[in-house]
């Protein structure tokens, strides 16, 4: 497979300015992640110490195989919600290696509000379990939660994808034969009690771990019975009397030693067969991505330059290089795994849509997973294109994206707007994983456009009332709308709402995709089959 030849001028002023801009975006990301992960009020840290508990991040180190990667998901969930009071939505999720097994880890972060579940906490847990189901990954739950955040219970309890979904997903995983293990490190109260109870295996720490439907205060209020935590749901009671828990542990490290040995007994699944080759690093320095991404996302650049810095050996076999050129399609490998890439080099036209739909089917037939690199403002509009059937051709692309049986992965590199998001495997199209780069927004249309449309309505209404508006008055109406819109189309808003699986530093993308692609192959790939393509 031939190498891409880069035309990037790394000494140009544009490169330098872009690099400065994008590096600062990456730094801001890392700063935010650092804060979300580690910045906690002293009293919370002290409380954990007093309770003889390990800081949740340290628990991960005890659990994971040393020297192996951990792909954390949705680190910045809830970063723009609850006035920033629930960093990470009080949950840590990700994919890591335990006793040589690829597993999904879900940990309550007891250093945030005692690990209380906010609505976005529930969404994050459900998403982690969805990932486990889709990719058939075992799950290890580290349980230490105060329970549902009651002031917001209406947003987390009753609906289809609310808290009940956690337990439903657990049950489905078990039914699929995918093992789950809970390590009970703190209290599992009410619904939380079902996490260990629905796990195939569980370990409970003596003295700190407890499982009960109602804690001692609730029991007293309900029946007048006075009972201690240990009597009601402690390690000894559950491992010797009720059988709710399997393994008592003397302390947290002991619990993790037991957990690791249990994980070591899990049979490794046969992975879906793809043609793997020995990995090789990209021939071009991934750090140069910073100099490629434009400061203004509307500036056009060649997505092949990004591909050259993400794929093995920068080798890329381009499909239909001369047709439908606003969508670059081709074959490559990432960390040794084959991948079919679709990347936007402009808006989607009829030909590029047809090319994409065709390429997806080629990959599906060939059992090659798909990677969508989004940089899309939408499908082309106008009389000429409608006459040529742009909606019809777009529908073909969406039909192909939706129907493909091979795993899909999506990275929003430089913005994803309008129906382009559908054609490029947005969240609704169930890519196995979806990541966003720090400068990449997403919304139904561009911010300026949308602000104009929104403020126009208001201005027209006022004009009907006989008012004539000055420039300043128009700006006063338009600017807040624009600001609000910009905020809501930012990568950080998307990740706060868990529309993605996390914001990635562009240079981390190759590793993240390597881990995701490996995870995806744990599930068998269904035979290709599609709906009706409107021809």
């Amino acid at each position, binding site marked *: 497979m031939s190498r891409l030849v880069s035309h990037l001028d790394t000494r140009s002023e544009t490169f330098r300015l872009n690099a400065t801009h994008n590096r600062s975006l990456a730094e801001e990301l890392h700063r935010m992640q650092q804060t979300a992960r580690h910045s906690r009020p002293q009293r919370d840290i002290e409380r954990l110490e007093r309770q003889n508990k390990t800081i949740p991040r340290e628990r991960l180190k005890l659990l994971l*195989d*040393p*020297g*192996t*990667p*951990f*792909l*954390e998901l949705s*680190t910045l969930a809830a970063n723009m919600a609850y006035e920033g009071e629930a960093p990470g939505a009080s949950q840590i999720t990700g994919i890591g*290696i335990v*006793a*040589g*097994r*690829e597993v999904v880890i879900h940990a309550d972060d007891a250093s945030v509000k005692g690990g209380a579940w906010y609505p976005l906490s529930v969404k994050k847990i459900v998403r982690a379990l969805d990932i486990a189901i889709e990719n058939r990954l075992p799950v290890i739950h580290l349980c230490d939660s105060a329970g549902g955040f009651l002031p917001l219970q209406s947003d987390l309890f009753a609906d289809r994808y609310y808290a009940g979904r956690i337990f439903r997903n657990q049950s489905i995983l078990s039914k699929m034969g995918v093992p789950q293990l809970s390590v009970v490190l703190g209290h599992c109260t009410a619904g939380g009690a079902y996490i260990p109870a629905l796990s195939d295996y569980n370990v409970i720490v003596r003295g700190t771990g407890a499982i009960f439907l109602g804690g001692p205060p609730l029991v007293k209020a309900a029946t007048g019975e006075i009972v201690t935590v240990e009597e009601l749901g402690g390690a000894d009671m559950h491992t010797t009397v009720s059988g709710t828990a399997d393994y008592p542990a003397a302390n947290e490290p002991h619990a993790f030693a037991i957990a690791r040995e249990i994980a*070591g007994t899990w049979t490794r699944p046969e992975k879906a067969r793809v043609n793997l080759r020995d*990995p090789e690093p990209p021939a071009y320095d991934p750090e140069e991505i910073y100099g490629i991404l434009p400061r203004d996302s509307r500036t056009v650049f060649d997505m092949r330059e990004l591909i050259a810095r993400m794929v093995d050996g920068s080798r890329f076999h381009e499909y239909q290089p001369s047709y439908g050129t606003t969508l670059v399609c081709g074959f490559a490998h990432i*960390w*040794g*795994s084959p991948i079919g890439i679709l990347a936007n080099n402009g808006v989607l036209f009829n030909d590029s849509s047809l090319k994409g739909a065709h390429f997806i089917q080629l990959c599906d037939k060939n059992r090659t997973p798909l990677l969508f690199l989004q940089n899309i403002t939408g499908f082309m509009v106008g009389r000429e294109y409608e006459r040529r059937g742009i909606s019809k051709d777009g529908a073909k692309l969406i039909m192909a994206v939706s129907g493909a049986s091979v795993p899909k992965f999506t990275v929003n590199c430089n913005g994803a707007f309008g129906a382009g998001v559908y054609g490029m495997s947005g969240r609704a199209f169930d890519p196995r994983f979806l990541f966003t780069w720090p400068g990449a927004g997403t919304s139904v249309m561009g911010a300026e456009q949308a602000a104009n449309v929104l403020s126009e309505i208001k201005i027209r209404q006022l004009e009907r009332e006989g008012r004539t508006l000055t420039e300043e008055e128009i700006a006063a109406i338009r600017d807040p709308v624009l600001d609000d819109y910009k905020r809501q189309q930012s990568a950080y808003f998307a990740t706060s709402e868990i529309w993605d699986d*996390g914001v*990635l*530093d562009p240079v*981390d993308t190759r*590793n*993240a995709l*390597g*881990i995701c692609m*490996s995870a995806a192959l744990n599930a068998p790939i269904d035979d290709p089959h599609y709906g009706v393509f409107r021809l």
Partner: protein
Amino acid sequence: MTSLFSAVLVANRGEIAARILRTVQAMGMRGLVVYHAVDRNTPAVRMADEAIEIDGPSPVAAYLDGAQIIAKARAAGAEAIHPGYGFLAENANFAQAVAHAGMTFVGPSPDAIDLMGDKVRARNFVAERGFPVAPSAIEDDEPATFVERARAVGAPLLIKPSAGGGGKGMRIVRDLSLLEEEIARGRSEGQRYFGDGRLYAERYVERPRHIEVQVLGDAHGNVVHLFERECSIQRRFQKVIEESPSPALSPKLRADICEAAAGIARAVGYTNAGTVEFIYGNGEFFFLEMNTRLQVEHPVTEEVTGRDLVADQLRVAAGQPLGFNQEDLTINGHAIELRLYAEDAARDFAPTTGPVIVFRPSPDARIDAGVVEGGEVTAAFDPMIAKVIVHGSDRADAIARADKALAETVLLGCRTNSGFLRRLLADEDFRHGEFHTGTIAEKADLLPEPELSPDLAKRVLAAASLSLRTTREAAEAIPAPHSLIGDWNN
């Protein structure tokens, strides 16, 4: 050389059995050995021309069963029995019984064994002939003059209850003006502890050193000494490092102490190899006791004198004359013996046991070993595994060679005192020859193994991790690409 005996049986085990067999076989005689089943896998059994199994209620009891050993030796056609050290070596009855059975006992006469075996008789015998013994006074002898006699012994003085033991009621008097007071207290304590206030006083030797002299006599009245050995490096009365010559002696003192030893041997009419032990301190030496056998530490004497003491023993036992005079003997260089014990210095020298999985003695030293690869160190016997013997041009050279020999000697499967020995060798006081029998007890900091340096710990862990199945499997279990991505997180 015509054989002295057609076959010699060694009534011993471990390193000394192998060491004796080596000379027996080198002299063209058949070497036989008795062994208990637990010793089946030891060097002596492997090298013997014939190894004869003995049994008993315990392994030690088997080696102490003189009647059984004599019967088996006769049946096997042995003409002589060498007892080694320990077990039956200083048992006059055994020596007698060997003779009665028509075989030669390789050692002194039963009378000499008897005399020197009784510590009180031996002391009196030596004192009566004018050799130095520690001055003492016994209250029993003449209670009225006890204080005066004690004062005549001179300071420092050790007073202990005649009925005593375990250090109770013992007092050291360094100022004779306090003597009466101390005796009064000693009496009262003796009365309180033992119901008996009588006392015993003897010269107290401060910081005593253990110096012993090798002697050799033949049946023709020739007695020589083979100079001294110093064995002051001891732990709990067990010698750890021995050397020859002693760094403590001036040529004059050496001549005095060696002549005294030879004189004592002559007075006894001693034949064969023996050792006269002295306590030395403050320029004075006193007779302690005589060991009527080959000593564990005899190799240092062999190294500096160039003689094979076992060969000399066998020749003398066969009735041959020594064949050399005192003037023929000189000290050549310096020799050190280190006793490699299966023990944990850090845990109060508790014996350790285990399989001898690898045993590769240093090629640059004489190593008299009692174990072989594939054997086992058990709790049945003394925990000495081997003796590492080096010979250097001078003491510093010998110390350097000793350290190198220890470092090169590989023994895996059982903890040893090798590290402790090396720390002793490196000790400044040891290097300067300044030590006494209490030195190890004073140097508690030498006992524990020092913490491994971070670099060494890392290498040890690497070696272990790479050779253990579990750790390698854990590494192999990590899937690609994770193993290639390594320690990374987003």
